[in-house]
Structure formats: C-alpha cells, structure tokens
C-alpha cells in the first residue's frame, strides 16, 4: 500500500461522522477520505471529499467501485435523533435498507479490504434476566422487537451475511454503549436535559456509558488497524441512574415504569417530552458490557471511564442545557428540585 488507503465514510453530515472523517483524513497511511451522506453537509470538512449520495440507492455502488475505495466505514447506523424530530420510519429505513445497499455495493467492489461498522449495544436489549455484563457472544435475553435495538440486530445480521460471502474482507463491528458528550445529540442526552427528569419508580438502572471522543478514537483505531471481529466499546465501570442524575444535579420525578414509557405517546401532544419505550426499558434495567475483547484483541483503551465521561458531560453542558428551554425561569425549578432529588 504505497499510496495509502482510500476510505469511504458514511453519515458525515452528522457531527460524529464529520469529525471521524476529518480525523481519518489526518491519519497517517490514509491517502483520501470520501464522505457520503444523504443530507447536505453544513460545515467544511478538512481534507474530505464530500459526495452527496443516498446509501439507500444503488448509486452508492458506483461511488464505492468508481473511486477504488478499499476501506468502508459505516458510521450512519444511529438512533433517531433530536427531540420529537423525524419519526422512526425514515430512521429505520436509513439504518436497515441503507446498510443493505451499502453492503451490496461493497460485495461488488473487488478492491475492498476492510469494512468497519458502527453498530450498537442496543442490540443486547435490557431486561431483568440480563447478566451483569454482556460479552460479545451473548444474545439478548429479551430480544428488542422494535426501535433501534431491532435495527441493530438486522444490520448485524446483514453484516454477518456479507462477511460470509466476502471472507477476504476484514470486518470489524463495534458495539458502543450509550454515547455521552458535550456535542452528541443522543436519546440519552436528550433525556438528561429534560426540565424535570422522569425516572422509573422502584428501579435503578446500571448505566455504562462511552464518551463521544472515545467512540471516534475506537472507530479510527479499527479503521487503521483492521482487526476482524465484534467488540463492545464502553468506558470502565458503571453508574446508577439515580447517581448519574444526582451528579448532574437534575430534578427528578419517579413514575411507574408503565407511565414512564407512555409519557411521550400520551402527553406528547401537550408538549411533555419523555423517553421513548426503548429508552424507558433501558432506564429501568440498564445494560453492562464486558470490554475485555476491546482491550485485549482490539487493543483499545478508552480515555474516559463512565464516571469521568459523565463528569465531563456535566461540566460542558450542565447549566447551559437546563437553561435552554426557558432561560429566565430555569434557575428556580433546578434549585428546588435539587433538594427534592436529594
């Protein structure tokens, strides 16, 4: 590889995708980075050739084959973003059909050597029958039947199929835990920034989190290194939900778990926001990941533990996020709720 790698990154219009593309463009041994997204990219990506293309469309095959891409980084598998943003259907379409088309294109590209897929730990689901820590070879005890978790299982199914059909391609699948960070918009960070945070009554979930920068570092390492396999990626240690909310200084209100899951669908029109059903289950039982494979085989050591990622998030976005919705009134509910949640 005298000329270095030609890397195609999907989902570069999202913040994380764009940052990953820029990181890869600067990495040694990478000759060219092609960024693909269906949405227009609103900011300049240094050293990245942006191609606006829909991965749900066979056109993507011409990009993969025509540009002699040897490494594909599939970054655009992600949960529905934004509070009350676009619905589930387009997200699912993008995740599942997009992955199918992309993999079909990859299969036809003879020069392809590596495939790195950002999957998710959401595929493990959350239930009372879960072991404390999931290893990569464990299946979900309560298989996600809808939502992002189901997308993830389907995406991974297609990736396994691709891996069987193209044994010459090194396939790395990363299963990051819930992301947290100052810039990431995730269902969890939306939840944390609610004016009053509803929690499931009588349950205290174990949360294991990953800092957004650590996800980028892990994706970069996997791309440059090319280690075959599936890896959980998460920070060390766990934090209980109640503990996390206390550290963030968030006002809380305990609701029965059923009410928690129904909050959004029933009171959504009235402007009340809450976790969706999938997140509500996660917030009830939580999910722990075994990261020994990540350390020993992939050789990745995250910079942040769960606790320090949370602390970083609290520092960078704590007061600002709370005061976002209604700036003048924000201080008093926070102050009184601090006492309530304590």
């Amino acid at each position: 590889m005298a000329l270095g790698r030609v890397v195609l990154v999907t989902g570069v219009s999202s913040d994380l995708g764009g940052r990953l593309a820029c990181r890869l463009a600067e990495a040694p041994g990478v000759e060219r980075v092609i960024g693909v997204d269906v949405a227009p990219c609103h900011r300049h990506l240094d050293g990245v050739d942006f191609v606006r293309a829909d991965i749900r469309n066979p056109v993507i095959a011409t990009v993969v084959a025509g540009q002699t891409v040897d490494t594909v980084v599939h970054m655009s598998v992600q949960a529905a973003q934004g509070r009350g943003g676009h619905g589930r259907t387009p997200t699912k379409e993008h995740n599942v059909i997009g992955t199918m088309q992309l993999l079909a294109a990859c299969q036809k590209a003879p020069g392809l050597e590596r495939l790195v897929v950002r999957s998710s730990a959401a595929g493990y689901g959350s239930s009372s029958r879960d072991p404390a820590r999931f290893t990569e070879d464990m299946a979900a005890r309560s298989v996600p039947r809808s939502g992002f978790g189901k997308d993830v299982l389907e995406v991974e199914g297609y990736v396994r199929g691709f891996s069987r059909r193209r044994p010459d391609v090194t396939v790395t699948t990363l299963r990051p835990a819930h992301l947290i960070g100052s810039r990431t918009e995730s269902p969890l960070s939306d939840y944390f920034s609610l004016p009053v945070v509803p929690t499931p009554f009588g349950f205290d979930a174990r949360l294991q989190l990953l800092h957004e920068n650590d996800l980028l570092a892990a994706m970069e390492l996997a791309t440059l290194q090319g280690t075959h396999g599936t890896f959980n990626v998460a920070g060390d240690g766990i934090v209980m939900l109640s503990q996390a909310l206390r550290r963030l200084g968030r006002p809380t209100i305990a609701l029965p778990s059923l009410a928690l899951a129904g909050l959004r669908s029933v009171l959504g029109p009235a402007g009340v926001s809450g976790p969706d059903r999938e997140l509500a289950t996660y917030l009830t039982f939580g999910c722990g990941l075994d990261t020994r494979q990540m350390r020993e085989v992939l050789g990745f050591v995250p910079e942040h533990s769960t606790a320090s990622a949370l602390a970083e998030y609290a520092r960078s976005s704590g007061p600002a996020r709370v005061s976002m919705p209604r700036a003048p009134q924000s201080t008093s509910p926070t102050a009184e709720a601090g006492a309530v949640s304590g």
Partner: protein
Amino acid sequence: MAESGAGAEVIPLGTRGRPGRGTGSSKPSSAARNLAAGSPAKKPARARLPGPNHDAATKDREPDTGIPVDDWLNAVTDAAGEILGANWEPRLAELTGFLRRRVAGEYVVDDYGFDSEVTERLFLAAARPLKEKWFRIEVRGAENIPTEGGALLVSNHSGTIPVDGLMTMVSVHDHTGRHLRPLGADLVFRLPVVGELARRAGATLACHEDAEQMLRGGEVVGVWPEGFKGIGKPYSERYKLQRFGRGGFVSAAMRTGVPIVPCSVVGAEEIYPLIGNLPALARLLGVPYVPITPFFPLLGPLGLIPLPSKWLIEFGSPIRTDTYQSGAADDSMLVFNLTDQVRETIQQTLYSLLTERRSVFH
C-alpha cells in the same frame, strides 16, 4: 447559668423569708469562709450554703426571655453525645459527609450495582438488631468461610420472605468482615423496589455468567438452590430440603475452582408459618405464591412482623472443587453427585441443629 447567678439571692427554706444562717450580704460569714476554703472568693459563698437545706435552695427567676442559647447548645451537645456516643463530633462530621456524598452521587458502585457504603451503613445496620435481639442468632463454624478468595456459600431456603438470606449476609459480614454476594432469581430484579434494593445490597442474577464472574473476582457468593420451592413451602414440610435446582451452582464452583461452604439455617421456617396459598391471585400478580400465614393477611400489616423464633446458623467445612480435572464441570454425573453431597450435608446438619434447639422460641 446557675453558677453565674450573681444577682440571685438565696434564702434557705424554713426561715419565713428572713435570712437564716447566711447573712445575705456580699461578705460571707466566717463559717462559710471556712467551708469554701479551697476556692477563692470568686464565686459568692452564699451559693454554696452548707447544710441539708442546700439542695432545696431556690433562687429568683430571671426575666422571662426564653431558653438561653447556651442551654440549647448544651442540650444539643448532650443529645448528640447520647445518640452518637462519646466521640460524637467526628462521628457527626462523618455522618454529614456521608449524607453529602449520597446527595451529590459521589459514591462508587461495582459492576453489579453493589453499593458497599449504603449496605454497611443502612441495610446491615438495620438488620443487625433483628439478628441479635429478635432472632438471637447463634452462628457456628464461621471459621469455615475463607477469609480471602472466592467461595460459594450454599444454603437452605425457607421463611416465605427471604429473611434468611439477609440474616446470612449479616452473619457473614459480622464474623468475617466480608460481604456475601447473593444470587437471586430474575423475579427479584423484575419487582420494583425489591430489585433495586437487592442490586444495591450486592445481589445479582443467578446465571452462570454472573456467578462465575463473581467467583473469579474473589467474592463470597451465596446461593439458595431450592429457590421459590424452598421459601414457599408449607409449614408442614419445614426443614425438608427441596430439589437443589439443576446443580448449576456446583458446576460454577468447579469451573472456577472455589470451595463450596454448606450453610444450614434453623429458625427461618417458623418466622412466617405458611399455612395456605392463593394460587389464582399469584398467577394474576405474576409471583410464585401469595402466602397465608396465621397472621397474614388477617392482621394486615401487623401480620408482617416475623415471629421471634430462635435461629441457629452453621457453616459446614468447605468442600474443595479445585482437585477435579479441568473438564469435570461438564461431567453431569459428577456434578449431580456433588450436588447431592452438598444437599445431604445441609440436611443432616439441619437435623442435628434441630435436636439441639430446646424449642422454637428458645
């Protein structure tokens, strides 16, 4: 304040208001001076009038301005000393530190959600009086619990509500300083409040992944292989061990090579004598049984008070599992035999403990 009552005039009783042996002047009599020889005349001697009337001395009331601040402080100090013991100041500081940490979330839990601080300070501290005063638990063979490294404690299960698990946890902690990590059925973690408390107290799901992980991590892990069959059995079948699961705990111990410590608990059977069951309601609620005891639900919440039976807990000598070959955990016959051996040991110990106990309550 009593000693600084400079303006108070002390008049002995029985003198009809006239000054008696004291003159009432600022200059004490020679007799009074003699009595107060040790102390210089800083304090007015009339405050130390001799004689049997001294204790009954009265003084004029001060202007009614409420209780002085110093008295309040003294009262608070005394109360703190009363509640927290002699060195109450550092203990109070520690307590407020504890509360501050809890409110700020600045405490650490392990991978299973075990919160050692709250377990030691709240759960075990609350269960200890129950152990010592209510059930008067006698612990035997505590030296059989290894002081370090992993060990699997296997115990019988009884009592309608798993109070025996909690009492075993307190006993293990008080005699060895180690935390017993219980393995619970998934129902425990499905129930609100119960599941949260169980995780916080160090429990985790009874599955072989968690069991092996904990044992490899060098914890003392507790299992109750009879499960709901044991805890929800009728009173007439007390002290008859039920089937010991499928022997999963033995293979977990064999894979990790830790010793199995049999534990026999006598007394838990009598705390809530189970005389009936409501299977239809149990199905409706999704729980294994809904108990009827002589006092529950008859007396309502009062029926939840356990009977004060006398308890004996005996830890038997450890059974080694590290002498088997590496594939032994997959040898079903060997696993069943070892399961039976553990079960028999506990059953025999139960019988011998029962003969030792004079009556249910003594």
